[in-house]
Protein backbone atom coordinates (compact mmCIF):
# COMPACT_ATOMS: atom_id res chain seq x y z
CA UNK A 1 0.00 0.00 0.00
CA UNK A 2 2.78 2.44 0.94
CA UNK A 3 4.79 2.07 -2.33
CA UNK A 4 1.55 2.45 -4.27
CA UNK A 5 0.82 5.68 -2.40
CA UNK A 6 4.33 7.06 -3.03
CA UNK A 7 4.02 6.35 -6.74
CA UNK A 8 0.60 8.02 -6.77
CA UNK A 9 1.91 11.17 -5.07
CA UNK A 10 4.98 11.27 -7.30
CA UNK A 11 2.76 10.93 -10.38
CA UNK A 12 0.54 13.83 -9.30
CA UNK A 13 3.60 16.02 -8.66
CA UNK A 14 5.16 15.08 -12.02
CA UNK A 15 1.95 15.91 -13.90
CA UNK A 16 1.62 19.28 -12.15
CA UNK A 17 5.27 20.18 -12.75
CA UNK A 18 5.03 19.20 -16.41
CA UNK A 19 1.88 21.25 -16.93
CA UNK A 20 3.54 24.25 -15.28
CA UNK A 21 6.67 23.81 -17.44
CA UNK A 22 4.52 23.67 -20.58
CA UNK A 23 2.65 26.83 -19.52
CA UNK A 24 5.85 28.77 -19.00
CA UNK A 25 7.46 27.34 -22.15
CA UNK A 26 4.62 28.87 -24.13
CA UNK A 27 5.04 32.20 -22.32
CA UNK A 28 8.82 32.23 -22.85
CA UNK A 29 8.44 31.29 -26.50
CA UNK A 30 6.03 34.16 -27.09
CA UNK A 31 8.34 36.57 -25.25
CA UNK A 32 11.31 35.32 -27.26
CA UNK A 33 9.39 35.66 -30.54
CA UNK A 34 8.39 39.17 -29.53
CA UNK A 35 11.99 40.07 -28.74
CA UNK A 36 13.25 38.71 -32.08
CA UNK A 37 10.51 40.48 -34.04
CA UNK A 38 11.06 43.76 -32.20
CA UNK A 39 7.74 43.89 -30.31
CA UNK A 40 6.65 43.34 -26.68
CA UNK A 41 5.07 39.90 -26.68
CA UNK A 42 2.50 39.16 -23.93
CA UNK A 43 2.63 41.98 -21.35
CA UNK A 44 -0.90 42.46 -19.95
CA UNK A 45 -1.63 39.67 -17.46
CA UNK A 46 0.51 40.37 -14.41
CA UNK A 47 3.98 41.99 -14.40
CA UNK A 48 5.66 41.37 -17.78
CA UNK A 49 2.68 39.17 -18.65
CA UNK A 50 3.88 36.24 -16.53
CA UNK A 51 0.31 35.04 -15.86
CA UNK A 52 -0.58 34.98 -19.55
CA UNK A 53 -0.53 31.19 -19.92
CA UNK A 54 -2.63 30.68 -16.77
CA UNK A 55 -5.16 33.23 -18.01
CA UNK A 56 -5.28 31.40 -21.34
CA UNK A 57 -5.87 28.06 -19.61
CA UNK A 58 -8.75 29.45 -17.50
CA UNK A 59 -10.29 31.04 -20.57
CA UNK A 60 -10.10 27.80 -22.54
CA UNK A 61 -11.80 25.81 -19.78
CA UNK A 62 -14.63 28.32 -19.33
CA UNK A 63 -15.19 28.96 -23.02
CA UNK A 64 -18.14 27.65 -25.00
CA UNK A 65 -17.29 24.69 -27.17
CA UNK A 66 -18.48 24.67 -30.75
CA UNK A 67 -19.07 21.17 -32.03
CA UNK A 68 -19.18 21.11 -35.83
CA UNK A 69 -22.29 19.43 -37.14
CA UNK A 70 -20.57 17.00 -39.50
CA UNK A 71 -18.12 15.51 -37.03
CA UNK A 72 -17.67 11.84 -36.19
CA UNK A 73 -18.80 11.95 -32.56
CA UNK A 74 -16.56 9.36 -30.90
CA UNK A 75 -13.33 10.05 -32.80
CA UNK A 76 -13.81 13.81 -32.47
CA UNK A 77 -14.06 13.36 -28.71
CA UNK A 78 -11.09 11.06 -28.13
CA UNK A 79 -8.55 12.48 -30.65
CA UNK A 80 -7.27 15.37 -28.46
CA UNK A 81 -7.17 13.07 -25.43
CA UNK A 82 -4.96 10.60 -27.35
CA UNK A 83 -2.53 13.35 -28.32
CA UNK A 84 -2.22 14.86 -24.85
CA UNK A 85 -2.10 11.56 -22.93
CA UNK A 86 0.45 9.95 -25.23
CA UNK A 87 2.73 12.96 -24.93
CA UNK A 88 2.58 12.88 -21.12
CA UNK A 89 2.97 9.17 -20.35
CA UNK A 90 6.60 8.73 -21.56
CA UNK A 91 7.82 11.12 -18.86
CA UNK A 92 7.29 8.37 -16.28
CA UNK A 93 10.10 6.45 -18.05
CA UNK A 94 12.53 9.25 -18.91
CA UNK A 95 15.42 9.45 -16.45
CA UNK A 96 15.22 12.98 -15.07
CA UNK A 97 18.73 13.24 -13.67
CA UNK A 98 20.28 9.82 -13.24
CA UNK A 99 17.20 7.55 -12.96
CA UNK A 100 13.48 7.58 -13.86
CA UNK A 101 11.20 9.14 -11.27
CA UNK A 102 8.31 6.67 -11.49
CA UNK A 103 8.92 3.53 -13.55
CA UNK A 104 12.43 2.11 -13.81
CA UNK A 105 12.08 -0.65 -16.40
CA UNK A 106 14.56 -2.36 -18.72
CA UNK A 107 12.88 -1.67 -22.05
CA UNK A 108 12.08 1.97 -21.41
CA UNK A 109 13.33 3.21 -24.80
CA UNK A 110 10.94 0.90 -26.68
CA UNK A 111 8.04 1.96 -24.43
CA UNK A 112 8.81 5.63 -25.06
CA UNK A 113 8.95 5.09 -28.83
CA UNK A 114 5.68 3.17 -28.94
CA UNK A 115 3.72 5.63 -26.82
CA UNK A 116 5.18 8.75 -28.41
CA UNK A 117 4.14 7.36 -31.80
CA UNK A 118 0.50 7.49 -30.71
CA UNK A 119 0.37 11.29 -30.67
CA UNK A 120 0.34 11.28 -34.48
CA UNK A 121 -2.74 9.04 -34.39
CA UNK A 122 -4.50 11.68 -32.31
CA UNK A 123 -3.65 14.37 -34.84
CA UNK A 124 -4.69 12.28 -37.86
CA UNK A 125 -7.95 11.19 -36.21
CA UNK A 126 -8.68 14.75 -35.13
CA UNK A 127 -8.21 15.95 -38.69
CA UNK A 128 -10.30 13.24 -40.30
CA UNK A 129 -13.13 13.24 -37.76
CA UNK A 130 -13.85 16.98 -37.96
CA UNK A 131 -15.78 16.62 -41.23
CA UNK A 132 -14.29 19.76 -42.75
CA UNK A 133 -11.72 20.05 -45.46
CA UNK A 134 -8.90 22.01 -43.85
CA UNK A 135 -8.57 19.59 -40.92
CA UNK A 136 -8.74 16.71 -43.38
CA UNK A 137 -5.75 18.05 -45.30
CA UNK A 138 -3.91 18.69 -42.04
CA UNK A 139 -4.49 15.10 -40.95
CA UNK A 140 -3.35 13.69 -44.29
CA UNK A 141 -0.22 15.81 -44.22
CA UNK A 142 0.52 14.68 -40.69
CA UNK A 143 0.20 11.03 -41.75
CA UNK A 144 2.54 11.52 -44.73
CA UNK A 145 5.05 13.32 -42.53
CA UNK A 146 4.93 10.46 -40.05
CA UNK A 147 5.57 7.95 -42.86
CA UNK A 148 8.57 9.93 -44.05
CA UNK A 149 10.32 10.73 -40.81
CA UNK A 150 9.68 7.71 -38.63
CA UNK A 151 12.26 5.52 -40.41
CA UNK A 152 15.31 7.80 -40.03
CA UNK A 153 14.14 8.40 -36.44
CA UNK A 154 14.15 4.67 -35.72
CA UNK A 155 17.44 4.00 -37.54
CA UNK A 156 19.34 6.71 -35.69
CA UNK A 157 18.03 5.31 -32.39
CA UNK A 158 19.19 1.85 -33.51
CA UNK A 159 22.73 3.21 -33.87
CA UNK A 160 22.61 4.48 -30.27
CA UNK A 161 21.33 1.12 -29.02
CA UNK A 162 24.11 -0.57 -30.98
CA UNK A 163 26.71 1.47 -29.15
CA UNK A 164 25.16 1.14 -25.70
CA UNK A 165 23.87 -2.46 -26.11
CA UNK A 166 20.77 -1.83 -24.00
CA UNK A 167 17.14 -0.63 -24.28
CA UNK A 168 17.21 1.04 -20.87
CA UNK A 169 17.49 4.83 -20.98
CA UNK A 170 19.20 4.81 -17.59
CA UNK A 171 21.96 2.49 -18.81
CA UNK A 172 22.33 4.45 -22.05
CA UNK A 173 23.12 7.51 -19.93
CA UNK A 174 25.54 5.51 -17.78
CA UNK A 175 27.37 4.20 -20.86
CA UNK A 176 28.12 7.68 -22.21
CA UNK A 177 31.67 8.35 -21.02
CA UNK A 178 31.80 10.83 -23.87
CA UNK A 179 28.41 12.08 -25.14
CA UNK A 180 27.27 10.17 -28.21
CA UNK A 181 27.03 13.39 -30.21
CA UNK A 182 30.80 13.12 -30.83
CA UNK A 183 31.10 9.56 -32.17
CA UNK A 184 27.71 9.76 -33.95
CA UNK A 185 27.34 13.28 -35.23
CA UNK A 186 25.48 12.17 -38.38
CA UNK A 187 23.05 10.17 -36.24
CA UNK A 188 22.49 13.19 -34.02
CA UNK A 189 21.76 15.35 -37.04
CA UNK A 190 19.24 12.84 -38.41
CA UNK A 191 17.57 12.44 -35.02
CA UNK A 192 17.37 16.19 -34.52
CA UNK A 193 15.75 16.81 -37.90
CA UNK A 194 13.38 13.86 -37.58
CA UNK A 195 12.46 15.05 -34.08
CA UNK A 196 11.79 18.53 -35.41
CA UNK A 197 9.43 17.00 -37.98
CA UNK A 198 7.86 14.75 -35.35
CA UNK A 199 6.93 17.70 -33.13
CA UNK A 200 5.51 19.52 -36.18
CA UNK A 201 7.35 22.76 -35.59
CA UNK A 202 8.40 25.41 -38.07
CA UNK A 203 10.30 24.30 -40.97
CA UNK A 204 8.08 21.20 -40.82
CA UNK A 205 4.79 22.56 -39.43
CA UNK A 206 2.79 21.52 -42.49
CA UNK A 207 -0.06 19.78 -40.62
CA UNK A 208 -1.18 23.06 -39.07
CA UNK A 209 0.22 25.62 -41.53
CA UNK A 210 -1.82 28.71 -40.58
CA UNK A 211 -1.34 30.53 -43.84
CA UNK A 212 -2.46 27.60 -46.02
CA UNK A 213 -4.81 25.44 -43.95
CA UNK A 214 -6.20 28.02 -41.46
CA UNK A 215 -5.22 25.88 -38.47
CA UNK A 216 -4.83 22.44 -40.00
CA UNK A 217 -6.03 19.55 -37.86
CA UNK A 218 -7.29 21.77 -35.04
CA UNK A 219 -9.39 24.18 -37.10
CA UNK A 220 -12.70 22.78 -35.84
CA UNK A 221 -11.58 22.38 -32.23
CA UNK A 222 -12.27 24.90 -29.51
CA UNK A 223 -12.11 25.23 -25.75
CA UNK A 224 -10.45 22.51 -23.72
CA UNK A 225 -10.11 20.15 -26.67
CA UNK A 226 -8.00 22.71 -28.49
CA UNK A 227 -6.02 23.18 -25.28
CA UNK A 228 -5.37 19.42 -25.20
CA UNK A 229 -3.91 19.47 -28.70
CA UNK A 230 -1.79 22.47 -27.75
CA UNK A 231 -0.60 20.87 -24.51
CA UNK A 232 0.16 17.61 -26.28
CA UNK A 233 2.20 19.39 -28.90
CA UNK A 234 4.34 21.22 -26.36
CA UNK A 235 4.71 18.16 -24.12
CA UNK A 236 5.86 16.28 -27.23
CA UNK A 237 8.44 19.01 -27.81
CA UNK A 238 9.80 18.53 -24.27
CA UNK A 239 9.77 14.77 -24.84
CA UNK A 240 11.79 14.97 -28.06
CA UNK A 241 14.30 17.37 -26.54
CA UNK A 242 14.71 15.15 -23.48
CA UNK A 243 15.29 12.17 -25.80
CA UNK A 244 17.96 14.21 -27.60
CA UNK A 245 19.56 14.97 -24.24
CA UNK A 246 19.37 11.36 -23.03
CA UNK A 247 20.57 9.71 -26.24
CA UNK A 248 23.17 12.16 -27.51
CA UNK A 249 24.13 14.75 -24.90
CA UNK A 250 24.84 12.50 -21.93
CA UNK A 251 21.61 12.96 -19.94
CA UNK A 252 22.30 14.04 -16.38
CA UNK A 253 26.06 13.45 -16.67
CA UNK A 254 27.80 16.68 -15.73
CA UNK A 255 31.31 15.42 -16.61
CA UNK A 256 33.60 18.05 -15.05
CA UNK A 257 31.14 20.46 -13.51
CA UNK A 258 29.99 19.64 -9.94
CA UNK A 259 26.21 20.12 -10.17
CA UNK A 260 23.28 17.85 -9.18
CA UNK A 261 22.34 15.62 -12.10
CA UNK A 262 18.68 16.72 -12.45
CA UNK A 263 19.79 20.35 -12.70
CA UNK A 264 22.28 19.46 -15.45
CA UNK A 265 19.50 17.56 -17.22
CA UNK A 266 17.13 20.55 -17.04
CA UNK A 267 19.80 22.97 -18.28
CA UNK A 268 20.54 20.73 -21.26
CA UNK A 269 16.82 20.41 -22.09
CA UNK A 270 16.38 24.17 -21.85
CA UNK A 271 19.29 24.60 -24.25
CA UNK A 272 17.82 22.16 -26.80
CA UNK A 273 14.37 23.80 -26.57
CA UNK A 274 16.01 27.19 -27.07
CA UNK A 275 17.54 25.88 -30.32
CA UNK A 276 14.06 24.72 -31.41
CA UNK A 277 12.72 28.25 -30.76
CA UNK A 278 15.65 29.80 -32.57
CA UNK A 279 14.98 27.63 -35.64
CA UNK A 280 11.34 28.64 -35.47
CA UNK A 281 12.14 32.33 -35.65
CA UNK A 282 14.71 31.95 -38.41
CA UNK A 283 13.40 29.59 -41.06
CA UNK A 284 10.43 29.62 -43.45
CA UNK A 285 8.16 26.60 -43.97
CA UNK A 286 9.30 23.97 -46.48
CA UNK A 287 7.09 22.70 -49.30
CA UNK A 288 5.62 19.23 -48.97
CA UNK A 289 7.42 17.53 -51.87
CA UNK A 290 10.70 19.01 -50.62
CA UNK A 291 10.05 17.50 -47.21
CA UNK A 292 9.36 14.00 -48.51
CA UNK A 293 12.30 14.05 -50.92
CA UNK A 294 14.58 15.32 -48.19
CA UNK A 295 13.61 12.46 -45.93
CA UNK A 296 13.65 9.58 -48.44
CA UNK A 297 16.66 10.68 -50.49
CA UNK A 298 18.90 12.20 -47.86
CA UNK A 299 18.01 11.28 -44.27
CA UNK A 300 17.38 7.55 -44.81
CA UNK A 301 20.68 6.84 -46.64
CA UNK A 302 22.53 9.02 -44.14
CA UNK A 303 21.10 7.12 -41.18
CA UNK A 304 21.94 3.79 -42.85
CA UNK A 305 25.50 4.99 -43.39
CA UNK A 306 25.73 6.07 -39.76
CA UNK A 307 24.46 2.67 -38.64
CA UNK A 308 26.98 0.80 -40.81
CA UNK A 309 29.91 2.91 -39.61
CA UNK A 310 28.94 2.45 -35.96
CA UNK A 311 28.49 -1.31 -36.40
CA UNK A 312 31.90 -1.67 -38.11
CA UNK A 313 33.54 0.14 -35.21
CA UNK A 314 31.60 -1.96 -32.72
CA UNK A 315 31.93 -5.45 -34.21
CA UNK A 316 34.93 -5.59 -36.52
CA UNK A 317 37.44 -3.32 -34.81
Amino acid at each position, binding site marked *: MIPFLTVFIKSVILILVLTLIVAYMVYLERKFLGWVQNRYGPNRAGPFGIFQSIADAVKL*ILKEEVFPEKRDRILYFIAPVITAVSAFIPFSLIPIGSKPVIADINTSLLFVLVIAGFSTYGIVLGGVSSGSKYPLFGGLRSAAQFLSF*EIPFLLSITAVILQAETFSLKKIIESQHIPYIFPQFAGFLVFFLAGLADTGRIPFDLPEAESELVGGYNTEYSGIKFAWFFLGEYAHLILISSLIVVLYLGGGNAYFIPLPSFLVFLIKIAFVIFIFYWIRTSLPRVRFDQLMKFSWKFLIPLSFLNLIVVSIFK*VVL
Partner: protein
Amino acid sequence: MGYTGFFVFFLLVLFIGLLLVVLPKILAPKVSEEYKLDPYECGEIPVTEEAWSRYNVRFYLLALAFVIFEVEGVFLLLWALNPRGLGIAGFIEITIFVVILFLGWIYMLAKGVIKWE
Protein backbone atom coordinates in the same frame (compact mmCIF):
# COMPACT_ATOMS: atom_id res chain seq x y z
CA MET B 1 8.66 0.25 -8.83
CA GLY B 2 8.66 -1.01 -12.41
CA TYR B 3 5.57 -1.65 -14.46
CA THR B 4 3.19 -0.91 -11.55
CA GLY B 5 4.41 2.67 -11.41
CA PHE B 6 4.02 2.96 -15.15
CA PHE B 7 0.41 1.76 -15.08
CA VAL B 8 -0.48 4.01 -12.15
CA PHE B 9 0.87 6.99 -14.08
CA PHE B 10 -0.88 5.85 -17.25
CA LEU B 11 -4.29 5.53 -15.58
CA LEU B 12 -3.90 8.81 -13.71
CA VAL B 13 -3.01 10.75 -16.88
CA LEU B 14 -5.86 9.10 -18.78
CA PHE B 15 -8.32 9.92 -15.98
CA ILE B 16 -7.29 13.60 -15.83
CA GLY B 17 -7.36 13.84 -19.61
CA LEU B 18 -10.91 12.51 -19.89
CA LEU B 19 -12.17 14.42 -16.83
CA LEU B 20 -11.09 17.81 -18.11
CA VAL B 21 -12.63 17.18 -21.52
CA VAL B 22 -16.02 16.63 -19.86
CA LEU B 23 -15.67 19.63 -17.51
CA PRO B 24 -16.81 22.37 -19.97
CA LYS B 25 -20.18 20.59 -20.25
CA ILE B 26 -20.86 21.95 -16.74
CA LEU B 27 -18.89 25.22 -16.80
CA ALA B 28 -19.21 26.56 -20.32
CA PRO B 29 -22.21 28.48 -21.65
CA LYS B 30 -24.14 27.27 -24.69
CA VAL B 31 -25.71 29.58 -27.25
CA SER B 32 -27.07 28.26 -30.52
CA GLU B 33 -27.15 30.33 -33.69
CA GLU B 34 -27.78 29.71 -37.33
CA TYR B 35 -24.71 28.55 -39.34
CA LYS B 36 -22.68 28.23 -36.14
CA LEU B 37 -22.17 24.48 -36.45
CA ASP B 38 -21.29 24.49 -40.15
CA PRO B 39 -17.79 23.36 -41.15
CA TYR B 40 -15.38 26.26 -41.12
CA GLU B 41 -14.69 27.72 -44.56
CA CYS B 42 -13.51 31.26 -43.83
CA GLY B 43 -17.01 32.55 -43.09
CA GLU B 44 -18.59 31.39 -46.32
CA ILE B 45 -21.41 28.90 -46.58
CA PRO B 46 -19.55 25.63 -47.31
CA VAL B 47 -19.07 24.91 -51.00
CA THR B 48 -18.64 21.18 -50.63
CA GLU B 49 -21.39 19.02 -49.19
CA GLU B 50 -19.13 16.46 -47.52
CA ALA B 51 -15.45 16.54 -46.62
CA TRP B 52 -15.34 12.76 -46.72
CA SER B 53 -15.60 12.45 -50.46
CA ARG B 54 -13.12 10.40 -52.46
CA TYR B 55 -9.65 11.85 -52.60
CA ASN B 56 -6.48 10.73 -54.29
CA VAL B 57 -4.22 8.78 -51.95
CA ARG B 58 -1.02 9.31 -53.88
CA PHE B 59 1.49 7.71 -51.64
CA TYR B 60 0.10 4.29 -50.86
CA LEU B 61 3.25 2.71 -52.32
CA LEU B 62 5.25 4.89 -49.96
CA ALA B 63 3.13 3.61 -47.08
CA LEU B 64 3.94 0.03 -48.11
CA ALA B 65 7.65 0.89 -48.21
CA PHE B 66 7.26 2.45 -44.77
CA VAL B 67 5.84 -0.76 -43.33
CA ILE B 68 8.71 -2.79 -44.82
CA PHE B 69 11.37 -0.46 -43.44
CA GLU B 70 9.73 -0.40 -40.01
CA VAL B 71 9.74 -4.19 -39.82
CA GLU B 72 13.38 -4.10 -40.86
CA GLY B 73 13.94 -1.63 -38.02
CA VAL B 74 12.53 -4.15 -35.54
CA PHE B 75 14.99 -6.81 -36.74
CA LEU B 76 17.85 -4.33 -36.52
CA LEU B 77 16.84 -3.38 -32.96
CA LEU B 78 17.03 -7.02 -31.85
CA TRP B 79 20.47 -7.40 -33.42
CA ALA B 80 21.68 -4.08 -31.98
CA LEU B 81 21.04 -5.34 -28.46
CA ASN B 82 23.91 -7.85 -28.64
CA PRO B 83 26.21 -7.12 -31.60
CA ARG B 84 29.43 -8.49 -30.09
CA GLY B 85 27.80 -11.68 -28.89
CA LEU B 86 26.55 -12.45 -32.40
CA GLY B 87 30.01 -11.61 -33.74
CA ILE B 88 31.25 -11.33 -37.29
CA ALA B 89 28.74 -13.90 -38.59
CA GLY B 90 25.82 -11.86 -37.25
CA PHE B 91 27.33 -8.71 -38.68
CA ILE B 92 27.64 -10.25 -42.17
CA GLU B 93 24.09 -11.59 -42.04
CA ILE B 94 22.65 -8.24 -41.02
CA THR B 95 24.72 -6.52 -43.75
CA ILE B 96 23.24 -8.83 -46.42
CA PHE B 97 19.77 -8.12 -45.01
CA VAL B 98 20.32 -4.35 -45.13
CA VAL B 99 21.84 -4.46 -48.62
CA ILE B 100 18.80 -6.32 -50.00
CA LEU B 101 16.51 -3.66 -48.53
CA PHE B 102 18.79 -0.95 -49.87
CA LEU B 103 18.40 -2.40 -53.39
CA GLY B 104 14.65 -2.23 -52.82
CA TRP B 105 15.03 1.41 -51.83
CA ILE B 106 16.93 2.16 -55.08
CA TYR B 107 14.22 0.34 -57.09
CA MET B 108 11.56 2.40 -55.30
CA LEU B 109 13.25 5.67 -56.23
CA ALA B 110 13.78 4.51 -59.81
CA LYS B 111 10.06 3.72 -60.11
CA GLY B 112 9.33 7.28 -59.09
CA VAL B 113 7.29 6.52 -55.98
CA ILE B 114 7.95 9.93 -54.45
CA LYS B 115 7.82 11.92 -57.65
CA TRP B 116 5.31 14.81 -57.92
CA GLU B 117 3.95 15.97 -61.22
